[in-house]
């Protein structure tokens, strides 16, 4: 079995590179369930663990990661699908026209291609409920905007470098905004306010 190497982020924080997202989430969920760490955060390439130094050591955590890796993945789980009704372009998607110009597509062609796929939620990060959706095809991919916008309305949908992202809160953002949805992904009035989770599959349907 390969030994995982802890990478120190600080005296109370380590990170482990892992092979794929399924393993990243499996390891992260198992470590979190132990209840001994301050935070267990999956990233796109690995898992980071923040801990109380007196309680544990990087070597202990590496051992826990190896144990979690050796557990077999659960087979046959069907991912939840989330349908997101979206208004593409116009005021709700101020960057769509420019994106289409860069990609040499008409807006209708872009919408057809973007809306026909299922996008996996790879991680949640940045701010509450911000979903990184993988699987954006190469032909629809553009770079981040050179200057981020200081305030995007809640529900804005952006694309950047192979990802589609949904801004569950209003706030600053640097992705090219192609549309907007009214679906609430962070609902502060619920005991569990998070409506979107890693492993879910998202389909966009044009409004």
């Amino acid at each position, binding site marked *: 079995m390969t030994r995982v190497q802890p990478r120190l982020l*600080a*005296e109370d924080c380590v990170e482990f590179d892992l092979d794929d997202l399924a393993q990243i989430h499996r390891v992260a969920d198992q470590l979190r369930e132990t209840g001994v760490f301050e*935070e267990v955060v999956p*990233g796109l390439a690995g898992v980071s663990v923040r801990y109380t130094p*007196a309680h544990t050591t990087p070597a202990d955590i590496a051992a826990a990661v190896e144990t979690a890796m050796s557990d077999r993945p659960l087979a046959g789980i069907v991912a939840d699908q989330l349908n997101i009704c979206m208004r593409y372009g116009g005021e709700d998607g101020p960057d769509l026209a420019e994106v289409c110009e860069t990609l040499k597509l008409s807006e209708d062609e872009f919408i057809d291609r973007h809306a026909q796929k299922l996008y996996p939620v790879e991680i949640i990060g940045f701010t509450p409920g911000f979903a990184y959706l993988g699987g954006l095809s190469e032909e629809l991919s553009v770079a981040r905007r050179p200057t981020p916008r200081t305030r995007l309305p809640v529900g804005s949908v952006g694309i950047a470098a192979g990802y589609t992202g949904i801004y569950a809160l209003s706030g600053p953002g640097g992705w090219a905004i192609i549309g907007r949805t009214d679906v609430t992904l962070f609902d*502060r009035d619920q005991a569990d306010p998070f409506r979107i989770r890693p492993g879910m599959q998202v389909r966009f349907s044009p409004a």
Partner: protein
Amino acid sequence: MKATILKPGLQTSLQARPRRGFRHQGMPWAGAADPVAMAAANWLVGNPASAPVLEQTYGGLTLRFDQPALVGLAGAPCALTLDGQGVAFARSFQVSGGQVLETGAPKTGLRTYLAVAGGWQAAALLGSVSTYMPAGIGGLWGRACQAGDVLGWAGTGSHPGARALPDRLRPYFSDSWTLRATVSAETDWLDPCSRAALFSQVFGVSRHSDRMGLRLTGSALVLRRRAEIPSAAMFPGMLQCPPDGAPIVLMADAQTTGGYPRIAQIARCDRHLLGQIRPTDRLRLLLRSPDQAVSAWTAKQDLLRQWMPDLDLY
């Protein structure tokens, strides 16, 4: 029991412990920017170390107590008046029903904490009452205090009576800070000169700083490798380096993931002081090994726990 905000000052919010355990869902910690000063204010009135407090930035709060209360303030020192009469800072004192407390602006340090015996009341969300303003949650309707807001506090059967903070619980505030720090995951992405400069140069602190982070100014750091990482975890105390080479020190409300290289981490023993650094202050990082950082943290936490046994230094 109730108190009414007459003037909120620049920014006053209800803060307590961090909202822990939800960073994988994108939820930042929030909580007191200086948890040691919060604990000191609570100690003055006999509360647990992380009972809810009012966190004031640059002072300027005016508050009327509608019932009698035992009150304590700690953190950035400022002038206090009760119905116009001066009151000593860092000492708890009794307020009568109807009296008005005013706090001045601190000359050094940034955040002053106001505790009331029994603790301010607010509904907890995900295990904490701390206000996280960008998502509109915690505290008073998820926002900073406004004139006319009414705050409640729990009655308390017994409290220690008025007392003064021991000198060991009163840090020295200045406009120049030296904080211990360790290397982080991408420190070696800096070119050798910049790596040396990171742990020796005196940085300025930009006006564009808030509870999310302190933006540092100074000679720009140069990265010798590609400038972004696949989105990965970020934590309070971390220094990230955007392409322009001006590092950002992440704070209590910092985002949970990001793509900029992580070039250093303020040591756990000194992170609480980040909450007291004001724009235009100067900051220098003192490089420590992880083992040295753990020893310094253990020593400081043990010292603080002589007075506040339930304090967690994070």
